[in-house]
């Protein structure tokens, strides 16, 4: 019983420490005193100020927000669909965002600054399409997954076709598809932050009902839950959250899949607990990943998406093996 508050506390402390490290460290070797001088706006420390306020701070905020958003999305998707492999990828969000991004770059390259909006629209419309298809096929959990997989494949084919026709698009799309926080601005985070936090709040309010869905559709209906509308709302919240993240950092892999599993190891399967734990854990994970991406090959800037995939896969296997030995 005491473990849950302690876990939350420790995760919060870890996130805070990582945030401080993220501001203090980077590919430029700057002392704390010079950073502080830059923060205070002292003359002669303009470079330090620029690095702190316009490079490190936006990346820190973006990493935290992306961790919260993707983890929230993953928790909702896995819980609602009762599938441990569910994630933003599964319901076609990433592929939908990618397709709309490529369409924008192909049809209106001058409108490239609207890429975040295109990605957001693509992810959201993909989720609506998947939901609509699933509803038409009966609305069960498995039909949502199947519809998501089919739509993902379709969107990926569209992306491949467009990049095959215009090979210049490939380099633009590659940068977007790997995912990262380089060049992110605080102004681009405001609207996604509002959407993610509203989604989190709504998910917390609905969590007592959403958790009943895990008992199965028949049991949930018998308990008075309106299964299909609730599932649709939960999926929409997941989609909004993930789409908001995609809009400012591209297609970050593994976070939405991995973090809910790790959170379950810490606090168990209770949805309300997961909805608080997973975002903290996801935020800490991405802040740490961003820090590593800036330090490991400094002064090179490795896209965070590469690290999350490189580290996420073995860590996920570790969790699976640990879970298997526990059951054994």
């Amino acid at each position, binding site marked *: 019983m005491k473990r849950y508050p302690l876990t939350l506390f420790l995760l919060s402390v870890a996130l805070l420490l990582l945030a401080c490290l993220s501001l203090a460290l980077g590919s430029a070797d700057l002392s704390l005193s010079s950073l502080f001088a830059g923060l205070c706006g002292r003359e002669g420390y303009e470079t330090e100020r*620029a*690095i702190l306020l316009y490079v490190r701070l936006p990346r820190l905020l973006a990493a935290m927000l992306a961790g919260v958003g993707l983890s929230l999305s993953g928790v909702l998707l896995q819980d609602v669909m009762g599938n441990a492999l569910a994630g933003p990828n599964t319901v076609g969000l990433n592929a939908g965002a990618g397709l709309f991004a490529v369409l924008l770059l192909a049809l209106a*390259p001058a409108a490239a600054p609207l890429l975040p909006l295109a990605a957001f629209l693509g992810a959201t419309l993909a989720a609506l399409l998947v939901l609509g298809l699933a509803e038409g096929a009966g609305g069960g959990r498995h039909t949502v997954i199947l519809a998501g997989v089919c739509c993902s494949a379709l969107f990926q084919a569209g992306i491949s076709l467009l990049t095959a026709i*215009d090979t210049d698009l490939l380099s633009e799309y590659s940068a*977007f598809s790997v995912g990262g926080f*380089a060049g992110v601005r605080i102004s681009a985070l405001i609207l996604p932050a509002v959407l993610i936090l509203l989604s989190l709040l709504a998910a917390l309010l609905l969590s007592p009902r959403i958790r009943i869905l895990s008992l199965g559709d028949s049991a949930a209906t018998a308990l008075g839950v309106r299964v299909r509308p609730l599932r649709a709302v939960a999926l929409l919240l997941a989609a909004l959250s993930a789409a908001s993240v995609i809009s400012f950092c591209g297609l970050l892999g593994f976070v939405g899949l991995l973090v809910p599993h790790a959170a379950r190891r810490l606090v168990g399967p209770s949805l309300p607990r997961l909805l608080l734990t997973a975002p903290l854990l996801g935020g800490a994970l991405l802040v740490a990943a961003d820090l590593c991406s800036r330090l490991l*090959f400094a*002064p*090179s*800037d490795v896209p965070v998406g590469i690290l999350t995939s490189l580290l996420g896969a073995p860590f996920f296997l570790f969790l699976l093996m640990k879970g298997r030995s526990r059951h054994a």
Partner: protein
Amino acid sequence: MRRLLSLLLLFSLLLLPSCAATEPPEETAAAPKRVAVLFSSLAEAWQDAGGEVAITVRESVERGLVPEGTPLVDGGAGKRIDTERLLSLAPDLVIASADVPAQVAAAELCRAAGIKTLLFRVDTYADYRETLRAMTALTGDTAAMEALTALDGEITALLASPEAAAARGQRIVFIRAGGTAASTKAKLPSDHFAAAMLSELGCRNLAEEAPLLVDTLSTEAILAADPDHLFFSLMGDEAAARANVEALLSRPEWQALRAVREGRVTILSRALFHYKPCLRWAEAYRALIGIFSEEVKE
């Protein structure tokens, strides 16, 4: 049956190591008449050498090197070659780029089909010079040989000129910019011929100082290094790339750079620095030298 054989040959070619640098031309009794050139810069070089391009790719038409209606084997820059169409057009010589895997594969297929092929890699002026020498040896065009000799002399004189000394030791960042921030990346001399030219002039590319350049230099590293000059090469849609660069330079962190505040930022002209400049290579060197020597005068 022929299609199956072609597919089997292509598959086995994937297991072979890719072809490398310039290959010396085989001796031929007469100059080739029906030449397929699979890369627009090589098409220009072949024409500079006095040759005619009979078959090529769409980009050669868009650049005005060949007229509309010229048989094409790719609708773009030659990154995907329609080998079936290429074989059906029956060239007697195929010239391809060793940098493009699809062209290397197409060249191997042609070679297996008994068609003479040449692979060239043109990353620097020295590569271009050797390429042109090899091509003029095939065409026998003495005027082209003289033009190459004159170009070589001009470039040698430019590199040794007092104006060129202004570039030595200048700390630069060379950035390839697309339409989005994510596709805007600092590059090494080996990544772009203009960056190689700047290195040849004695500039210090800050990307080279990274122990291992993975993807790009971090903005932090560029800010901390505060380079003397920024060079941008635009790719993709020019208007979108230019707008992206202007938006980037207007950001507060980039405004903190002395080079940005003092106007030492150059967006390289596509006319000279997007495609290989070929016979205009001296003009390209002169343009770069001019940037540094004007700064010295100021």
